[in-house]
């Protein structure tokens, strides 16, 4: 069954419904048409329902414009500051990673107790190089050990950075939750 898609009397019906005067201001012929025409009948039902609901919100207290403006301004500044600080975050992360890598290298290369511990390890596992210095490691390690070393080094570098970024994200979230709600 093909249903009608429009009716030439729609506009007439809607004009009266929109001013909440249906059916009082409609003449008998239009009322009779709306009763018989499925398009106009549905229009009356739907439009009347919307008009009926339209005035429901008239008394609703909305946030003041100054509150909405203030909150938008605060948030815009926060967003802008966050964007501006991204390169600095990256620089901080790199600095932390560099310091961590240097510390590990110095510790492994220079500490006497670390060398003694390494010699003990060599006694247990003769395949390891006898001296634990960066040079001997570079000279003697096989490619497989380099891969393992690279993985460990990456882990040592990335872990502090990950902690650092996670802490920053937590701080951001904490600050956001402290923002004032609207004074409604």
């Amino acid at each position, binding site marked *: 069954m093909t*249903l009608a*898609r*429009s009716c030439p009397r729609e506009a007439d*019906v*809607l004009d009266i*419904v*929109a001013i909440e005067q*249906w*059916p009082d201001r409609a003449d008998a012929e239009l*009322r009779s048409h*709306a*009763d018989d025409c*499925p*398009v*106009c*009948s*549905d*229009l*009356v*039902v*739907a*439009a009347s*329902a*919307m*008009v*009926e*609901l*339209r005035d*429901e*919100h*008239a008394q*609703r207290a*909305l*946030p003041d*414009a*100054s509150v*909405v*403006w203030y*909150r*938008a*301004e605060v*948030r*815009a*500044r926060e*967003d*802008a*500051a966050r*964007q*501006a*600080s991204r*390169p*600095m975050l990256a620089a901080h992360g790199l600095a932390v990673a560099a310091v961590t890598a240097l510390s590990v290298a110095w510790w492994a290369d220079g500490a006497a107790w670390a060398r003694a511990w390494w010699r003990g390890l060599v006694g247990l596992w003769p395949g390891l190089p006898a001296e634990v210095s960066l040079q001997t490691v570079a000279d003697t390690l096989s490619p497989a050990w380099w891969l393992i070393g690279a993985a460990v080094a990456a882990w040592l570098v990335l872990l502090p950075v990950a902690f650092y970024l996670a802490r920053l994200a937590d701080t951001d979230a904490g600050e956001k939750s402290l923002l004032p709600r*609207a004074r*409604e």
Partner: protein
Amino acid sequence: MTLRHVTTIDARAQAAIDAAADVTLQMDEESFRGFYSRTARMLWAYLERLTGDGQLADDLLQESYYRLLRSDVTLDGEIHSRRYLFRIATNLAHDAYRRRRARPALVSSDDGEHPRADRDLSAHGYDGRLDLNRALGRLRPRERALLWLAYAQGATHREIAEVLGVRPASVKVLLLRARRRLASLLGRRGATP
């Protein structure tokens, strides 16, 4: 690197942050106040009808104005700004609808669309207004938006098309279907009460 160097870098970073924090918004406060007073109630009612949740409508209202103020779009006059605002609000309401559907445990109505719908009936039993709310709750968000924009706000088909992101030529047919569906849900045929 000395402490002085570190201090200098921090000062530069702070200066960059301060410069970026001097943000530009789409309009000044005075213009915004006027625009808000002319559009807020209409927008809130629209959002409330779409979401069926007054609290959510409050949040989406704030978010809509924020996104409008921060948008990069060149807004050509009040009418364009208003349509763009309603477009933002429509998208936000649809996002909220999708999130609600993704959390079925928190959905109260059986089709997951409108929290007001069944809550009203279960609390109060049959009533004309509540029945209407329930019927609206059964409609799809786009159907609610179409009916509200067309008959509560008197928007033209072109305006509705812009707000909902559909072709203007489709609005008539979509409206016809939405009307038919609402009338059917209300169980009303025949225009004379």
